[in-house]
């Protein structure tokens, strides 16, 4: 019988062999032909742990660190070790209830799994930290503290210049797709944190870790041979003088406005005060979100950097530039005289522009006493100069000068969200009035810095640097140099000396004389500092908010010392009322004294600082707005406000709004066109009472107001752009 079945031993062997062959073939396809499994394995078995380097430190001109890093702890939890933890005392410390505690734990388990540590409470406050440290033994091993590096501002100053960092949102990720950001990363959102993000962030390191099925990191892959080290962010050296900045912020307390001080020799920004400001350390800790929405909803707009993002009509400070143009164009000479019998009548029947002092003035004196008629005549001569074939070309020439002086365009400062301001061009007037329907008399008010002309405080300060240097400037900038070299060539553009038009020194000397006169014996006497020759110019700017005339803005700009100027500075106090010399001039004086003498020691000067810083010039509309918001907060739930805060964050980070707004403005201006076409005979388009102070009301001022209604509308758009951020009511 066995013999009979002898052949079957081969069959059995064949079965064995064929099955093993099938298995080997299958292994061949699985392991060698397909690469899918390798990717899958890498996906789940490996973890790229990103190591965040410390951000770069920012120093001021005296090498004081004004923005650096500090460690704050996160409370971490590993949910599967929670058994036997004193939950109640932990809840007491963290000021939450046990239901919240449970909810958070469940959320973390869903997000990260049971056995992987997750953040239970990020960025513990100092008080919580102190309480936790005492009783941490009760909560181990489920809870532990982990340090995290956050930004800190040792001087609590320069918030708007330095900016803040925040978690990136989807919008940000979309805009920077190839820069290695992932959700949860922090990036600079405003200020130089944003403009120097590339160098401040440093280079991230990557550690490859093995990961297990519960998403825990077990050990380094191959003992870390594939890892790349992180490189700390580059330190930045700025031209800011932090003490000057602090003084500026102190002086601007309880006011709206801005101060910009520039070193005219280098273009380095010495101080950049936007008032009101905020404590920059507010936006670093655990309360960040709450405080951010508070700041954002504040109608005084503390998050707006007024030095670059707000624009104002320059008022009389503009006259210095008109003088330069007039002299250079040869339409006047330094001893050319115009007389003012009370107003400018160069436009025939049109409403005359008033002047304060009646008399006949040469250029120097015209600047010193800020004579409207003089500069209206100067600009009229420039615009109607027979040298130029048409009104268009004359205005274009004038535009060319203004652009050269850095107005009507972005200067290219390294602080983000810079606005262009507005220097009206022929195209602009064509749009507003229609081609051929405008002439000098249409816009004569811009000759004294009112009307359509708009400048940012930075542009004014830069203009002062230009005048101080007698014809050149460097693009203003905050950052002078950086550790480890300028790899991305971020600073290159600040090294080019800009000489817009050659204007002889003698012309500048004349303007300087006039400006010195302003401080020595004119409207800017408040800026006087002992032993320092200051050249300055005051400005008092009419403005409107939602069509309602507001208190005047007070302007002062200048430079010092006259020979070998070291500081060019401007200050604007919004809606302060009175003259430019009343508030802005003394603030500038103190700033100049502080910078040039290094400290202010005399008792009367110190008293002046205290007096000015206590002075409250907040316009009443801010208080009204605040009250409105309070009632809103009661009626609407906080989620609504938070959502709004979120929207603002997006707008803050995108920066699209600037161009958008400019366009809107134009569109609205267009809409006003039909209204204005009718009285084209310039009768109602003037800004007659521009310079008239409130204290001297004239009998016809009421009539004027009625007549200037279309103008006030136009102004409304302008002021809207200043205050656009609180229009979301």
């Amino acid at each position: 019988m066995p013999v009979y079945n002898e052949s079957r031993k081969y069959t059995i062997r064949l079965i064995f062999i064929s099955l093993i062959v099938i298995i080997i073939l299958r292994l061949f396809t699985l392991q060698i032909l397909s690469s899918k499994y390798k990717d899958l394995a890498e996906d789940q078995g490996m973890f790229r742990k990103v190591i965040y380097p410390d951000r770069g430190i920012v120093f001021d001109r005296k090498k004081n660190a004004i923005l650096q890093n500090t460690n704050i702890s996160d409370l971490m939890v590993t949910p599967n070790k929670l058994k036997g933890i004193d939950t109640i005392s932990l809840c007491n410390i963290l000021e939450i209830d046990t239901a919240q505690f449970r909810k958070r734990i469940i959320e973390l388990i869903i997000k990260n799994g049971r056995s992987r540590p997750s953040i239970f409470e990020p960025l513990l406050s100092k008080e919580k930290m102190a309480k936790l440290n005492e009783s941490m033994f009760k909560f181990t091993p489920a809870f532990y503290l982990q340090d995290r590096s956050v930004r800190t501002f040792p001087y609590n100053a320069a918030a708007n210049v330095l900016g803040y960092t925040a978690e990136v949102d989807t919008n940000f990720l979309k805009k920077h797709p190839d820069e290695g950001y992932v959700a949860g990363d922090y990036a600079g959102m405003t200020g130089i944190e944003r403009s120097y993000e590339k160098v401040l962030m440093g280079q991230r390191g990557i550690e490859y870790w093995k990961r297990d099925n519960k998403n825990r990191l077990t050990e380094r892959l191959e003992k870390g041979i594939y890892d790349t080290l992180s490189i700390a962010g580059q330190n930045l050296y700025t031209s800011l003088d932090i003490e000057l900045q602090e003084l500026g912020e102190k002086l601007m307390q309880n006011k709206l406005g801005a101060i910009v001080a520039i070193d005219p020799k280098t273009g380095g920004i010495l101080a950049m005060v936007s008032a009101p400001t905020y404590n920059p350390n507010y936006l670093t800790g655990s309360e960040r979100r709450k405080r951010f929405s508070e700041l954002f909803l504040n109608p005084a707009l503390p998050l707006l950097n007024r030095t670059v993002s707000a624009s104002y009509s320059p008022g009389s400070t503009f006259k210095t530039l008109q003088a330069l143009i007039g002299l250079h164009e040869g339409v006047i000479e330094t001893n050319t005289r115009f007389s003012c019998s009370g107003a400018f009548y160069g436009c025939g029947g049109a409403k005359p522009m008033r002047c304060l002092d009646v008399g006949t003035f040469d250029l120097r004196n015209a600047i010193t006493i800020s004579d409207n008629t003089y500069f209206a005549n100067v600009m009229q001569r420039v615009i109607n100069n027979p040298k130029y074939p048409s009104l268009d070309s004359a205005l274009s020439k004038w535009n060319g000068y203004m652009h050269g002086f850095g107005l009507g365009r972005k200067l290219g400062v390294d602080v983000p969200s810079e606005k262009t301001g507005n220097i009206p061009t022929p195209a602009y007037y064509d749009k507003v009035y229609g081609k051929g329907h405008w002439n000098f008399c249409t816009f004569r008010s811009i000759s004294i810095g009112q009307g359509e002309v708009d400048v940012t405080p930075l542009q004014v300060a830069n203009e002062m640097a230009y005048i101080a240097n007698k014809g050149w400037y460097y693009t203003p900038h905050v950052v002078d140099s950086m550790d480890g070299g300028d790899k991305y060539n971020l600073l290159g553009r600040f090294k080019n000396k800009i000489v817009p038009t050659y204007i002889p020194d003698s012309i500048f000397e004349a303007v300087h004389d006039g400006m010195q006169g302003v401080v020595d014996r004119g409207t800017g006497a408040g800026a006087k500092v002992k032993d320092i020759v200051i050249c300055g110019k005051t400005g008092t700017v009419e403005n409107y908010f939602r069509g309602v005339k507001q208190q005047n803005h007070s302007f002062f700009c200048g430079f010092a010392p006259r020979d070998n100027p070291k500081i060019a500075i401007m200050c604007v106090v919004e809606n302060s009322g009175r003259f430019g010399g009343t508030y802005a001039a003394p603030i500038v004086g103190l700033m100049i004294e502080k910078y040039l003498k290094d400290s202010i020691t005399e008792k009367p000067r110190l008293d002046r600082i205290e007096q000015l810083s206590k002075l409250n010039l907040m316009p009443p509309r801010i208080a009204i707005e605040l009250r409105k918001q309070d009632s809103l907060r009661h009626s609407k739930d906080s989620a609504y406000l938070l959502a709004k805060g979120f929207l603002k964050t997006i707008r803050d980070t995108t920066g699209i709004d600037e161009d958008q707004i400019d366009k809107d403005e134009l569109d609205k201006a267009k809409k006003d066109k039909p209204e204005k076409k009718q009285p084209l005979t310039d009768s109602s388009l003037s800004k007659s009472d521009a310079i008239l102070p409130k204290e001297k009301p004239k009998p016809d001022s009421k009539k004027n107001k009625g007549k200037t209604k279309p103008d006030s509308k136009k102004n409304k758009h302008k002021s809207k752009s200043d205050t656009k951020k609180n229009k979301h009511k």
Partner: protein
Amino acid sequence: MYQKNQTISTDKDWITIWLFTIIAFIGLVCIFSVEFRTNDDFLKSLFAFNKNYSKQFFYLILCFIIATFILLMDSKIFTATPNILYVVGILLMISTFVLGKTVNGSRSWIPLGFMNLQPVETCKIFVSLALAKYLSRPETDFSKTKSQLIASGICFLPVIFSLLQNETGLALVYFTFLLPMYREGFPPVYLILGISLGVLLILTLLLPSLHLLIGLTVLAFLSFYFLRLKIKRNRSILMVIFISWAVSAVFVGLAVPFIFKHVFQKYQADRIFSMVGRDNPYVTADTAELTSPEIQAENKKAKTDTENYNVKQSKIAIGSGGLFGKGFLKGTQTQGDFVPEQHTDFIFTSLGENFGFVGCTILMLLYLALLLRIVFIAERQRSTFSRVYAYSVAAIIFFHVAINICMTIGLAPVIGITLPLMSYGGSSLITFTVLIFILVKLDSDRQMVLR
């Protein structure tokens, strides 16, 4: 003729012993790589008896002691005791219903203190011996249906208890005794039918039915072409080819879809497909309509998360090994515990990931060498008892290897059976040791006629 030989060194089949040792050692290395982390202390953990590899290490030592004992025993004891042992084995299986301990959902374990004994596992030895004993009886005529029925009864009785214990996988092992029975004259039809049905079923699960139908048709034409001379002489072969093609086609094209669509509940069908790591292709339009897309997506997710998980992870681990593997202790999947039951049923994945295609092929060739060596040993026996026993051992090892490895690479459903000599576990390791060393002992006494 019979000489009493007390030394164990002479006339043993050293090739088998070496193959046994090498495979068992590879198994130990694989278990080690599953559990060992580079910051553990190697020697300390090896002797601590708290890690699986240290336990396996001690089981292996125990196995060598048991092997030595078996080699020192008298061969006659194996021919004298099978019936009693068989009864004891059956009783042990029954006793699990009383004494049993539930491990992984099956009540098939008897706790012995230092280890757990699984009677279904050890019973394989007794059944092999009993089958050998029955077939080697002079009065057994295996060509008679009655003897065939009795032999089948001996083999399949444990299946019933095993099924009752919820150990489907181990129950299937007993069907492997068809192989030694086939060698002894059991009609081949059953074997062929069994194998081809099994293969066809697995293929229908693995491949889309259209591909399979094309493949079957090609196969029919090929066999027609190669057998054309024979067909000229005997027309009935053509009929056989045609009928088997038709039956297979109906099975694949109609029967299987019908069963999956209408006989099985959806969850049952899903479960069967998930055993091979595929999504159920027979989700009909009407059943799909009943459930909203969200629920479907959710179902799909839940399924991939739980049921397919084993096979998918196992395929990922093996597939990511590549040609040479990631290197010893460098497998991210193995070290990350991604494959469930990796030290027992899925031990092959650790080899696949760490040593790649080369390592896997070497292991498969080692198993093949062991199997062929056992067949070689079987064929050199003079006594039927030894030969039947040897074939039983080969069949058991073959079945375990084939099913276990096919299941890790997605060719067979996931049924919990171990990889011989490799998988962690005293019960399995000792069973295979005893099976193999009884064979070695019998082989060393092949000059004797054993009944």
